[in-house]
C-alpha cells in the first residue's frame, strides 16, 4: 500500500469518483484555479474542466443552496466549505432544504450531495475560525455525517459519501491534511454506520472520532505502561452511528470515556455517553466520562487554546477516574 497524506487521499477519492460518474461536480471557494485553500482539489480543474470544478463567489448560502438545487435536478455535487465555520452562513440550506426535501415531498425528491471541509480547532485561529460543529449537523434528521481519522478512511468514506443518495456532511480538519498513512490502491469503500476498533483492550473503552483519535491512541499507549488496557473505538460514521460496536466493547470493559472536541452541551459526545448509560447501565462499573472542548469560545493565545482542547493528559485523567486509579 502506498503511504500518502490525508489531503492526497481525499483528492484520490474525488478524482476516482469524478472519473467514474460525470454527474459528480465539485464547487466551492478557491477549489478550481487556486487548487483548493488546502490543496485537496489540486489538478482537478485541469482534468475535469470548469463545468465540473467550479470556483464560487464568497456566497456560502448561495452556492450551498445551488448545490442542493443541482442535486435535485440530477447532479451529484460535492460542495467544499473552506471551513465548517463558514457553513454557518449556509446552515439554512442544509437544515431546511437538503435535509427536509425528501421528507416533505413525500419521498419524491432526494438530495445526493456531499458537504465537506475542515472542522474543529486548528491553531492560532481565534474564536470564529476554531469551532467543531458536528453537534449541529448530527442533530438534524435527514443528514448523514462522517468524520474519518486516517487517510485510508478519508478515501474510503468520501467515496461512499459521494455515491450515497442522501445529503452527507463530511468532516475533515486543517491539522490532519498533512497526516500520512497507508491507503489501498485498489477500490476502497468504507460503509456508513461502521466503527473501527483501533486497539483492543479489556480495562476501559475510549470512543472518539476525527482528529482526537490519534491523541486517544497516544493516551492508550501510555496507559498500557501503567497496566491499563484501553480498547479504542473510532466512531467514523456519526450518523448513522454504530451503536452495537460501542455496546459490545463497553459490556466487555464496563467503563467508558467518550472524547469529542466540540463543546460538551448537547454534543455527539454527550449523546453517545447517554446511549451507553441507557443501554449498558447494568454493565457499567463507573460513570461514563466525557472529554470535550472546554465550554468557552476558542482563545487565540496558544497556551490557552491548547488548554481549552482535549489532550492526552485529559484523556488519561478521565480513564483514571473511570478506572478508579487516580
Amino acid at each position, binding site marked *: 500500500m502506498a503511504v500518502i497524506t490525508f489531503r492526497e487521499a481525499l483528492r484520490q477519492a474525488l478524482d476516482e469518483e469524478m472519473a467514474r460518474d460525470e454527474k459528480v*461536480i465539485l464547487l466551492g471557494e478557491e477549489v478550481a484555479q487556486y487548487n483548493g485553500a488546502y490543496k485537496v482539489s489540486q489538478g482537478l480543474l485541469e482534468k475535469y474542466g470548469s*463545468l*465540473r470544478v*467550479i470556483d*464560487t*463567489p464568497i*456566497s456560502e*448560502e*448561495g*452556492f*450551498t*443552496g*445551488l*448545490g*442542493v*438545487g*443541482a*442535486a*435535485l*435536478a*440530477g*447532479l451529484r*455535487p460535492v460542495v467544499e466549505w473552506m471551513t465548517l465555520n463558514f457553513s454557518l452562513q449556509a446552515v*439554512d*440550506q442544509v437544515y*431546511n*432544504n437538503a435535509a427536509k*426535501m*425528501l*421528507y*416533505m*415531498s*413525500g*419521498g*419524491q*425528491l*432526494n438530495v445526493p450531495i456531499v458537504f465537506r471541509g475542515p472542522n474543529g480547532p486548528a491553531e492560532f485561529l481565534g474564536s470564529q475560525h476554531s469551532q467543531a460543529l458536528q453537534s449541529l449537523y448530527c442533530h438534524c*434528521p*435527514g443528514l*448523514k455525517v462522517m468524520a474519518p481519522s486516517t487517510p485510508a478512511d478519508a478515501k474510503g468514506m468520501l467515496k461512499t459519501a459521494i455515491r*450515497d*443518495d*442522501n445529503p452527507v456532511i463530511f468532516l475533515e480538519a486543517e491539522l490532519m491534511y498533512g497526516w500520512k498513512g497507508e491507503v489501498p490502491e485498489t477500490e476502497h469503500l468504507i460503509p456508513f454506520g461502521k466503527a473501527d476498533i483501533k486497539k483492543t483492550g479489556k480495562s476501559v473503552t475510549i470512543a472518539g472520532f476525527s482528529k482526537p483519535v490519534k491523541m486517544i491512541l497516544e493516551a492508550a499507549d501510555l496507559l498500557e505502561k501503567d497496566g491499563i488496557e484501553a480498547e479504542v473505538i473510532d466512531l467514523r460514521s456519526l450518523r448513522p452511528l454504530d451503536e452495537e460496536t460501542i455496546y459490545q466493547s463497553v459490556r466487555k470493559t464496563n467503563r467508558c470515556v467518550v472524547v469529542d472536541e466540540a463543546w460538551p452541551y448537547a454534543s455527539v459526545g454527550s449523546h453517545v455517553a447517554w446511549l451507553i448509560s441507557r443501554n449498558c447501565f447494568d454493565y457499567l462499573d463507573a460513570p461514563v466520562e466525557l472529554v470535550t472542548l472546554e465550554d468557552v469560545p476558542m482563545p487565540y493565545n496558544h497556551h490557552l487554546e491548547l488548554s481549552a482542547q482535549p489532550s492526552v493528559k485529559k484523556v488519561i485523567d478521565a480513564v483514571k477516574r473511570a478506572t478508579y486509579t487516580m
Partner: protein
Amino acid sequence: MIDRSNEKYPKEFMLNLLKKMILIRRFEELAAQMYGLQKIGGFCHLYIGQEATGVGAVEAVDLSTDYIYTAYRDHGLAIACGMDINSLMAELFGKATGCSKGKGGSMHFFDKSKHFMGGNGIVGAHIPLAAGSALAIRNSKSNGVVLCFFGDGAIHQGTFHESLNMAKIWNLPVLYICENNQYGMGTDFRRVSAVEDFTIMGASYGIEGKQVNGMDVLTVYEVVSEEVARIRKEKLPGFLEIKTYRYKGHSMSDPAKYRTRQELESYRIQDPIIILKSKMVDAGFLSEQEYETIDSTIKAQCKDAVTFAEESPEPVLEMLYQDVLV
C-alpha cells in the same frame, strides 16, 4: 406594458387559461372554507388575485425540460402545472393520498414528474435551488429553463442577490420572477425597500429587469414567453417584476387591516378572471351562459376534491419514519 389585440390568440388557448384561473380561484375559496371548518390546519397562504401570474407564466414553458420553483404560496402554481387537485386538497387535509403523502402540507406541494419543485417555506431560501437546477441543465446541455418565483418580501434576502450573481457569472438559464403582490406579510413593500421599482434590482448583476402587469394573463404569457425564448437562445438569466395583488390576507390568520377597502376594490375591478372573460366575450369566444357552465363544472370538481380528501385515509403511523433518508 405591451399592447396586443386579442385576436392573436385562438379561442381554445384563451379558454384553457380561463379555466385554469377559475380552477385556482375556486380551489382556494374552498380551501379557505375548509380552513374555517378546521379541516385544514397551520399556515395557509392563498393565491386569490394572483392567478394570472402563475397561469400565464407556466403556459409559457415546457415542463418536460423546464422547472418551476416557488415559495409557500404554492397552490396556484401547483394547479397551473397541472397537478391533480384531489392530491392537493388531500395534502391540505394531511391525508396519505396527498401529493406529499400528508407530510408536506399547504406550503410543501411537490410533483417531481411535472418538475414542480415546491412549495418552499423559508422566505427566499429556494432561490439558490433554482440556480442549481439551472446548473444541472447547463451541464446536461439540455435546452431547459427554470422559472423561479418569489415575493416582494424575499427580494431583500441575501439568497436573491447571491443567486443572481451566480446565475450571471455562470450563464444559468433562470428566469427570476418577483411576484410583487405589494405586501410582505403585513408590510407595504414601499416601507421596507430602498427602491420602489424592483426592475433595477438585477442591474448590479448585469441582468435587465422588466415590469409586467400581473393582472392580465395574456400579457404575462407573452412577456414570459419572450423571456424564456431569449434565455433558451442566449443562455443568460432574466428578471421580471410581475405586479399583482392578493385579495386575501398573507395567510388565513391575517385579517389584512393594513390596507384600505378602496385599494382592494381598485384591484377587484381589474380581476384577472374578469379581464380575460371580458376579452373573450368581446371577441365572441364566450357567452355569459358558457362562462356559468364552466364555473359550475369547476366548482363541482373542487367539491369532489374535498370529498376525496375527506374520504382519504390518514397516513399510517409507520409513515412517520419513512422518507427521512433514501
